[in-house]
């Protein structure tokens, strides 16, 4: 079964469509691997074998009846545990939601079901997606398949370790400041954050509503494109979802042509602060693009300097309000205080017990940032930075089709290395945050192994809002330049987890 679990989603879809393998066979192969290896990677918080197999069976029956629901019909998938599912608990990595089974499916989950993609399980994340390592998950950290002592990135480390460890052929992530792209970079996988509004957020447990976006985590750019096509589209339940379709990303990948491609290298994200091996990989990407005929220029985005500061005001502010609903009244944990259980005291005791340290830190930060007398200085200024970043990007995209940066400043760090240093942790997202602040699409594609530690590195591609197709085009070009050199996706070099 090794062949199946190391295949791309596109390859599996072909196997199913040509009746060379059934969805049940493929889903079984992944479930077997999950059962033997999840103890090592902690990628999944919830696995329900019989439920997954039932869905696979239905996919097979539909196909036998001549009904192919989507290009990924029958291909199983992992879903980040901050998307609501009626048939599985949804915890968002928090104790406050332990055991909660939502009464409704997220729109993306509905779309996966309609596409006949069996859900293998729910993947781990930092509590409420607050973190870059999954170390803030209330259910323990996930491990990086390249080195089980290292973090798989975060907050979507469950999905990235599942995909890179071949415990899922493809997965759903969510990205508020880099939670898809950063984990993809440090695990050698591909991750895309679509334009804000391209994918419905209905059923995504909100971290920061104006920044959150759901997207694919995959082995290849084509796989990511296939999944983005399945999950995107307008949703009347989400007022911020875009009214019009952005077109087919698969078409953009298949038609990708380097001719005339203009690439910008962001001055502020290409010099200081990057690990040497990461920087070397990035320089190599630039060289490959130039050699293949792309026009590469340097662009200036001076306001990027303030991105992290602005992000850590906007995110906590919105999160402090979004997380207010966790109050023990209607769902989830209820903790009774000692003494008189007034409503205020029950709410306080529940939130004290149910929330972890990073969540409390950000609620306090956000509550403060929104307080009367501080609003203009903090939230107000941060919103202005957001506008400045949008202006920088608009100016840059006048000159180029896409921008590229290293996705992350370093390769995967060791578990425990930064957990007590929030500021160091926050800087992991320095290159990915601007895309969320501006609402533009961003994607990470593997671009080699850092020579000093042998760990994967990623290059980030940014495109103008609603031009996700340009991003996929460039990502596909870069990926094919590397595949030509490697002969296979980088992910195929992941160590054999079974002997680790």
């Amino acid at each position, binding site marked *: 079964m090794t062949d199946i679990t190391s295949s791309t989603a596109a390859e599996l879809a072909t196997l199913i469509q040509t009746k060379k393998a059934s969805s049940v066979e493929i889903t079984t192969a992944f479930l077997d691997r999950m059962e033997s290896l999840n103890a090592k990677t902690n990628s999944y918080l919830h696995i329900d074998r019989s439920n997954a197999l039932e869905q696979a069976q239905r996919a097979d029956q539909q196909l036998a009846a001549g009904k192919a629901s989507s290009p990924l019909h029958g291909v199983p998938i992992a879903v980040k545990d901050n998307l609501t599912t009626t048939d599985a608990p949804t915890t968002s990595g928090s104790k406050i939601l332990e055991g909660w089974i939502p009464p409704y499916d997220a729109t993306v989950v509905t779309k996966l079901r309609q596409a006949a993609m069996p859900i293998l399980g729910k993947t781990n994340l930092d509590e409420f997606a607050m973190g870059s390592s999954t170390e803030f998950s209330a259910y323990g950290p996930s491990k990086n398949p390249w080195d089980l002592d290292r973090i798989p990135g975060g907050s979507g480390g469950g999905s990235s370790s599942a995909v890179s460890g071949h415990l899922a052929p493809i997965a759903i992530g969510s990205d508020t400041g880099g939670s898809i792209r950063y984990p993809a970079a440090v695990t050698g996988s591909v991750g895309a954050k679509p334009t804000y509004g391209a994918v419905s957020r209905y059923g995504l447990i909100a971290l920061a509503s104006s920044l959150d976006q759901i997207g694919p985590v995959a082995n290849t750019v084509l796989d990511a494109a296939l999944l983005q096509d399945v999950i995107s589209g307008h949703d*009347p339940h989400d007022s911020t979802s875009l009214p019009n379709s952005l077109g087919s990303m698969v078409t953009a990948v298949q038609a990708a042509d380097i001719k005339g491609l203009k690439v910008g290298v962001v001055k502020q994200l290409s010099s200081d602060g990057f690990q040497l091996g990461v920087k070397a990989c990035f320089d190599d990407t630039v060289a490959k693009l130039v050699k293949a005929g792309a026009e590469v220029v340097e662009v200036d985005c001076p306001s990027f300097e303030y991105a992290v500061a602005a992000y850590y005001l906007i995110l906590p502010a919105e999160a402090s*309000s979004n997380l207010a*609903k966790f109050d023990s009244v209607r769902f989830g944990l209820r903790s009774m205080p000692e003494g008189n259980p007034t409503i205020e005291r029950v709410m306080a005791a529940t939130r004290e017990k149910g929330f972890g340290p990073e969540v409390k830190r950000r609620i306090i930060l956000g509550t403060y940032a929104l307080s009367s007398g501080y609003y203009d200085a903090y939230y107000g200024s941060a919103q202005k930075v957001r506008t400045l970043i949008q202006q920088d990007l608009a100016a840059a995209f006048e000159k180029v089709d896409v921008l590229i940066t290293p996705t992350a400043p370093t390769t995967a760090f060791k578990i425990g290395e930064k957990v007590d240093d929030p500021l160091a942790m926050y800087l992991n997202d320095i290159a990915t945050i601007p895309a969320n602040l501006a609402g533009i699409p961003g994607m990470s594609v593997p671009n080699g192994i850092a020579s000093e530690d042998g760990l994967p590195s990623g290059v980030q591609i940014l495109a103008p809002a609603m031009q996700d197709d340009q991003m996929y085009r460039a990502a596909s070009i870069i990926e094919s330049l590397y595949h030509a050199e490697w002969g296979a996706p980088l992910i195929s070099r992941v160590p054999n987890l079974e002997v680790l």
Partner: protein
Amino acid sequence: MAKEQLMPYEQAIERFEVVIGLEVHVELNTASKMFCGCANNFGSEPNTNVCPTCLGLPGSLPAVNRKAIESSIAIGLALDCQIAESGRFSRKNYFYPDLAKNFQTSQYDEPIAYEGKISVELETGERFEVPIERAHMEEDAGKLTHVGGATGRIQGAEYSLVDYNRAGVPLVEIVTKPIYGAEDKAPELAATYVRVIRDIVKAMDVSDAKMERGNVRCDANVSLREKGAEKLGTRTETKNVNSLRSVENAVRYEIQRQAHILAAGGSIIQETRHWHEDRGHTSAGRPKSDADDYRYFPEPDLVPVQPSLEWIEEIRKTLPENPALRRKRLQEAWGFADLEFRDVFNSDLLDEVEQTVAAGASPQSARKWWTGELARLANAQGVSITELAITPGQVAEIQKLIDAGELTDRIARDVVAGVLAGEGEPSQVIESRGLRVVTDEGALIAAIDKALASQPDVLEKIRDGKLQAAGAVIGAVMQEMRGQADAARVRELILERAK
């Protein structure tokens, strides 16, 4: 609870200038809620009109009800407001169990409508133009029921039940600018203003407009300043004033209470107060302080409402006739004197009279029925006049029978009683109760002869010119006919007999 000391009203008005401000919440009667598809339905079983969004479940999102925006714009237009090119929602953050998300989605810095005015006419005919600051959209909270305490309040309750059926019901909050110069009329102006708002939203059919159900709720701000003083006084906000009478009484009470404190050299605490209609006073609620920090910020889950000019103009076309213009038109059409018209208007009977006239009664007879006999009956039954079980059509039908001489006023009152008692249409009541004027002259003459036989001197008296002597005979005849005779005709017949 000890009642506060009050300054006599006239004395308070003499010494202080009264400034009032009114916030009226109008619950819209849209089919669904503000941000989800749940039914907006009063009186359903608790927690049956709920979904992930109005329960504030993790992952849920709001989506604005277009009809609610339309109603809000219509209210704005009726109040002569500007309509915002872009109106965003904000979150008002505070923890309370009836608030599913622990924040209320409300328009804060960008209301849908602003800068309007409305003309308010008092009973005396005096007119005030009330300046409107804004009308904005927001969602209602759920309903708490406190169980186990003596008072039904949260203090002392054993536990509380939450019903989220009302959570997310669309509200429009209409806020006036400070209203100056009403002087001793301030309480009446406050109540009349609320009534005008209620009448408008009712006429527009954007709200059920039933104050007793909380469809229209008022918070009254009152402050006093020494006459001639520049600086506004500290204001209190009285909540829970949910009938027109309460609005008037609560404002009057606050004027007297504040005047007493200020006259004694004290200062007013800026606070929320609660009106107790049964006990006729307000009591202190929460003090307003810096601790009331709602941490407003723009709602990131919603895009701003940006109504197009075309849409606004379309809505403008659907507005019903302006109530003030309508009054003018009706008074002219009916030919009522000012006092007569005000009597109808102040009793809230314009619709009834208009419909009765439309059904064929003369304006004066319609007015007399509604402000006279029917008002008396409603009062006696302790119901509002519109709740009487008689329609304008039935009133007109009865009046037409009077005009045709088939009923006397007195018999007509019996017919009304029968209709109110549920005995059917006027014709059925007349039939079953046998209530028809006796027009059979033979029967009348027989009764007259019978009466004259027992009072033989009457005819002589009449012949001598003492016409009033006929009265005794008329009384006897009417008694004989059980009231169902036309007294005027009986009199004529007696006089004929005396010739």
